[in-house]
């Protein structure tokens, strides 16, 4: 047994979820990503003298949606505070953030790792504004400041320290990602920083009640980095402790190139943020009725959808999980199944998970950019179900649809791919093939059953795949045996 087994990792995550409001949380400036630096920062975002924040109601509604979705208490009164610190990309010298009275308190998210289900507690979720960005390249001894991001609404979601390893942490973040995208409150774009997290990591001897000293890993912006950074940090801490050392409470940055975490310089000198209620903003008061109105707008949530997919479509857990992991994919599947009419939903599931995702992946396309619509795919599946084409031919048709050559029926007609179901026609071909291969026929009859495949292949080649494989099989067996 390795030494590793004697240790247990304890992880809590602080996810930063950028809310997809059109304007910023306290100003009317746009939140669109990718504009020229400092073109989307108004006087309020710049913290000019005399300007005042006004809360964006849409950000509040989004936070409420999240709270309701994780079964949390949505506070009827929450308060914005100021978190005071100096940094060049923090224009006012303070960040407006909820502190003692957040909008969402308590909640839970169920994750599954290796088939094991586990409920992770959510301590709180609070609204805050994002800071700008410091740009350290291209300025020759200076730093550039881009304040476009300053004032972008964030929902910081803090988990309980319920996670016990990198795999659980990733499962939690993926589940959270699915949820916020489902709710339509975050675009989930991790490259652009719309969904990122900090991780608090500590280790302790397995079975110990007392927590070890934690370190905070900053700004993990991909699932892979989350996993690797936490894995590295767990091992680093174990190594420190096993060598008789001590883990220091500090903030560390993950370097994906070096695959290591390093203590952050500068910014971290036992900060005292001097939080106090922001006198420029009134407490956020929410009436119960308003919260209930928002509840009525919640979409079907991933877990509920998963259950329904298994129940209504007869899918396995695995299939339902894959298809519900992304709301758009789930919608695509349902639209396909509907378009495929009387076809087994399983067939739609297989095609969506297999050929469709494969093709998207191959071409590096997002689902929204798929050249094949659910209606088109459904049309193809109908032709499989009614024996117009075989599954194998269907793959050809799908590729043609992918190249935008038209709907399934048009492609089948144009390419003459309609399956031959006329028994007499197939029978003639079967007779010819058997006659042309007497020695193989003899060997088959002598008991070499494997040779059936050879004959099937020959017939299919002769029909360019258009013969019904079931019929071919049946005829071959009958003719060869009866021969």
């Amino acid at each position: 047994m390795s030494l590793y087994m004697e240790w247990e990792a304890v992880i809590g995550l602080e996810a930063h979820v950028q809310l997809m409001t059109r304007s910023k949380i306290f100003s009317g400036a746009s939140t669109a990503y990718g504009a020229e630096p400092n073109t989307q920062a108004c006087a309020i975002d710049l913290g000019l003298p005399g300007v005042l924040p006004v809360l964006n109601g849409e950000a509040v509604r989004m936070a409420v949606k999240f709270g309701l979705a994780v079964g949390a208490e949505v506070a009827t009164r929450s308060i914005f505070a100021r978190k005071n610190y100096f940094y060049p990309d923090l224009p006012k010298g303070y960040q407006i953030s909820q502190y003692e009275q957040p909008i969402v308190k308590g909640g839970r998210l169920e994750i599954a790792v290796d088939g094991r289900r586990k409920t992770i507690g959510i301590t709180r979720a609070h609204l805050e504004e994002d800071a700008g960005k410091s740009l350290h390249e291209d300025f020759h001894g200076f730093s550039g400041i881009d304040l476009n991001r300053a004032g972008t609404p964030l929902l910081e979601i803090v988990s309980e320290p319920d996670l016990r390893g990198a795999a659980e942490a990733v499962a939690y973040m993926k589940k959270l990602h699915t949820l916020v995208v489902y709710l339509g409150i975050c675009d989930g774009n991790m490259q652009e920083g719309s969904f990122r997290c900090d991780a608090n990591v500590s280790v302790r001897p397995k079975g110990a009640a007392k927590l070890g000293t934690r370190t905070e890993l900053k700004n993990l912006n991909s699932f892979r980095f989350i996993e690797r950074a936490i894995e590295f940090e767990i091992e680093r801490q174990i190594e420190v402790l096993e060598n008789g050392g001590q883990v220091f409470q500090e903030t560390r940055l993950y370097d994906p190139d070096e695959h290591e975490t390093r203590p952050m310089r500068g910014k971290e000198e036992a900060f005292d943020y001097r939080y106090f209620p922001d006198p420029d903003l009134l407490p956020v008061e929410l009436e119960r009725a308003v919260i209930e109105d928002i509840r009525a707008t919640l979409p079907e949530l991933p877990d509920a959808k998963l259950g329904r997919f298994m129940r209504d479509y007869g899918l396995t857990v695995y299939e339902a999980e894959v298809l519900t992991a992304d709301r758009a994919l789930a919608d695509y599947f349902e639209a396909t199944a509907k378009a495929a009419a009387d076809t087994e939903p399983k067939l739609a599931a297989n095609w969506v998970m297999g050929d469709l995702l494969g093709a998207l992946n191959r071409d590096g396309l997002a689902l929204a950019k798929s050249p094949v619509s659910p209606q088109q795919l459904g049309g193809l599946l109908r032709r499989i179900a009614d024996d117009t084409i075989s599954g194998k031919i269907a793959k050809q048709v799908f590729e043609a649809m992918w190249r935008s050559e038209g709907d399934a029926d048009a492609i089948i007609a144009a390419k003459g791919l309609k399956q031959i179901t006329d028994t007499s026609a197939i029978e003639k071909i079967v007779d010819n093939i058997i006659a042309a291969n007497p020695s193989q026929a003899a060997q088959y009859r002598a008991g070499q059953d494997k040779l059936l495949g050879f004959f099937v292949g020959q017939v299919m080649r002769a029909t360019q795949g258009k013969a019904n494989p079931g019929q071919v099989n049946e005829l071959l067996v009958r003719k060869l045996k009866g021969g």
Partner: protein
Amino acid sequence: MHQRSLADLAAALRRREFSSEELTRACLGRIARFNPRLNAFVTVTEERALGAARAADQRIKAGEARALEGVPIAHKDIFCTKGIRTSCGSRMLDNFIAPYDATVVEKLEQAGAIMVGKTNMDEFAMGSSNETSHYGPVCNPWDISMVPGGSSGGSAAAVAARLVPGATGTDTGGSIRQPAALCGISGLKPTYGAVSRYGMIAFASSLDQAGPFAVSAEDLAVMLQAMSGFDPRDSTSLDRPVPDYRAALDDAIAGLRIGLPKEYLGEGLDAGVAKAVEEAIKVFERLGAKPVEISLPNSRLAVPTYYVVAPAECSSNLARYDGVRFGYRCAEPRDLRDLYERSRGEGFGAEVKRRILIGTYVLSSGYYDAYYLKAQRLRRLISADFARAFGQVDVILGPTSPSVAFKLGAKQDPLTMYLCDIYTIAVNLAGLPGMSIPCGFAGGLPVGLQLIGNYFTEPRLLNAAHRYQRETDWHRRVPPGFE
């Protein structure tokens, strides 16, 4: 012309007794003549004012005159003015030109008022004598060796010397009422939230409130009418209809219950001031008002409470002056820390630094509960005192300041200076409306009478003041040499 009241001038302009251009030229002429002696203005906007005056004359001619059409006024240099420097009395903002107008500036302009310049003030409104200004102290027109009070000393001196018929100010702990008292004019601090704080450079957000200076209560009513009203850009602005502040000016005040707080009329009050206030009470009695002795038992806590709350908020509000985006930046900073330390060290004056230090201290972890939280509790006690009092009386009456104007440089000890606001500070802590009107002289210097009302009772305060001013002529006295 300069001897006439603002309301009178507005009416005369409408009758076309003289043009706005003539009146504006007269004011500019007086500013040019007297400002070197008073230092009341830090910026004079002559060309712009004359342009606006000519436009006002066109409107008057066209019969489209608005409430303050063509009336010259001055703005305290704390209100942002688009395209014109807003210094806030600080080296820090000596180069700051806002790209927007404060709501107060916008509203007065929309009412037709002509801005002739920006007035001197204590740095960031921190001071009670106008001696903390980066541009040097303002002198009291009644005796130029005396302070005008502060922080809105420039506006008060400008109106007292009849350089302009009206001016704006801000009042965080007495900064309108105390200089009005010391300069022998009328000044009003409205209910917190009645006038928008947008574009008004923040000192202590939960206490700051803009208001007018003028010769008479009637003039204040005219100005307040134009200044107040809900502003969606200020979350603490009150969304309620603006009353007609002039409607009740002449109502009889027989039966008005006047509260005389024993804490305001005892120890610490100069005899000359006490005598003038007692005389004023007799005038109210003659008008049928009923004096009632009341107690505001927590009065003695107001100054200490204020000097926790206000510095706490100021330490955060002034964090944005960091030399990064606007305002003063030190020469050749070595690194970020040096940039912060020297820009702030060189850009701020001693009193501002003192309050930032106090504020940072009281918000620090370990001291927050003992200072900031306790001050918030005391603030509620102080408000409760007033709530109780207004169960018994309609208006509270007392001195505005414990003494008349004092010599420039006489109060070097900050604590002695802070006690100037002993009767005004509680009103800000409670968010109530308060005003100061001239009620006599002591040793040749003006004495101010303070009237405090319950929330939103500005019309009643103005009514009481106006009735008093119909019986007296203290407000019409012009400082010798400025007639």
